[in-house]
């Protein structure tokens, strides 16, 4: 039993595996030829989550970002540690409401731009309660 895996209750990647988990490599050292090529497989957590404590998931309702490939019902992955620069898709907070939009920053203006003709871009009032909750890094879409 891998002690570390047990004590760290959260997800800790699949980097640690021992000989018992590799089926054919027994203690005699005579394993199948394929053992030399044994890999640990693809792990989506590793690919999609760069900074675990700062990563959150949210579900998208509506078509506000459908032009960017984010559709109604999709799940987006948000990384709060990524810097919100102009052009990123972000979760923004405007007057207490959470919105998913593309951030457009110019030297004196902030815009929240949807990716659908149905909605208009929002010019953020400099006196509004505005902040960025996090930056969207991936979208999970069921096909």
């Amino acid at each position, binding site marked *: 039993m891998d002690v570390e895996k047990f004590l760290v209750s959260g997800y800790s990647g699949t980097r640690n595996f021992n000989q018992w988990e590799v089926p054919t490599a027994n203690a005699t050292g005579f394993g199948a030829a394929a053992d030399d090529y044994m890999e640990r497989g693809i792990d989506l957590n590793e690919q999609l989550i760069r900074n675990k404590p700062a990563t959150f998931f*949210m579900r998208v309702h509506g078509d506000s970002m459908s032009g960017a490939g984010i559709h109604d019902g999709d799940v987006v992955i948000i990384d709060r540690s990524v810097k919100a620069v102009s052009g990123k898709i972000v979760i923004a907070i405007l007057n207490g409401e959470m919105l998913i939009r593309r951030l457009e920053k110019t030297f004196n203006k902030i815009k929240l731009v949807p990716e659908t003709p149905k909605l208009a871009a929002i010019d953020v009032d400099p006196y509004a309660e505005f902040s960025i909750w996090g930056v969207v890094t991936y979208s999970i879409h069921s096909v």
Partner: protein
Amino acid sequence: MKAIVDCNSFYCSCERVFRPDLLNKPVVVLSNNDGCIISRTDEAKSLGIQMAGPYYQARGLLEQNNVAVFSSNYHLYGDMSKRVMDTLRMIVGGDKVEVYSVDEAFLDLSQVPVNELENLAMEIRNTVEQWTGIKVSVGVAPSKVLSKVANRLSKKDKNATECVMVLDKEEKVVDALQRTPIGEVWGVGRRYADKLRDWWGIYNALQLRNMSPAWAATHMGGVTGERLVRELRAEPCIEMKDPLESKKMIATTRMFGKPVTELRDLREAVATYTSRAAEKLRRQYCAAGVIQVFVVTNNYDNNYSYNPQTKGLYSTLPRPTSNTHELIREALPLVEKLFRKGSRYLKAGITLSGLVPDDSIQGNLFVPHQENLNRLLMETIDNVNFSMRDDMLKFCAAGVAKNWKMRQELRSARFTTRWEELMVVK
């Protein structure tokens, strides 16, 4: 130097991360069963809402002022706590963090040059808030007790301190101690605080620091008092604990949603708590030799007169075990002995003690893998419950109906731990 990082109104802050409309608005979180207020924001505090006050008494005030009220959502708080602690580990290193409670951690900053402490403390505060959305206060000082003093003061006046206080000079320490009433010093209970004031005229932490360690040893409970005074004098005595140190005792206890009067419900509750405790036991590779069951009754007719009485019984196991069914088998006869027809039970709980390392778990590379079948069963149950949640596999003794389960009427969604309950964004 040591630091303590403490989350500001932690449970309320967790709720606010997913309710940005509640920023700068009063929020409170209720205890298990919606009994009393266990977390409040500064805005709620300034409305005169008391910490640990019963919910039904504060209800008028809460509604009048439009305070957002939440039942406790331990799934969310547990996950957010882990994120905060992981963030701290990433900043200062995993072996430098001692998790002290769900919302506090001590950091060992002995490797950090003194002139960089202020910057590091601010970086910690900023990074934790940026990554997790949780606001924290950071107190830095030469000892744990002093770091607690610094932390308390940084929270008191958030605008002036920006939630960071570093006591890196003697005059700062003196000033901070002067502003700390004796009852607010970490480790001084109310009884000691009264005694120090009435008998010795000690009103603040500075006065206590000026007493000698020898005096503290005679008048403040021996070595504990002496250590406290030394810590106030910036001589670190309370060292960082090994974060993996296992617990000496495991307890599981809950209030019931409504008073329980039937033996069957009481048995189910105790069996459920036993399962939970056994799971915790296995997680630290231990077996328990002693199990204690206790029940709390309130036999007054009036619902509001709270005069609880606790009764308990214990039993020594034939051999230490971590198997749920063996523990339940010991616990249930104790419940039957404790049960009195006509009593109203408010609460029940179990404690496991006499903990020893569970030898059945240690494997040996050179011995054929002989699996203990019970062990295999428990591991399977734990793995299924861990991945499926909500006690997917359990012993029948723990019941199916659960009439006694706690009330959580105002709980928010489990935004970070359940796929079906994710935050919705438009």
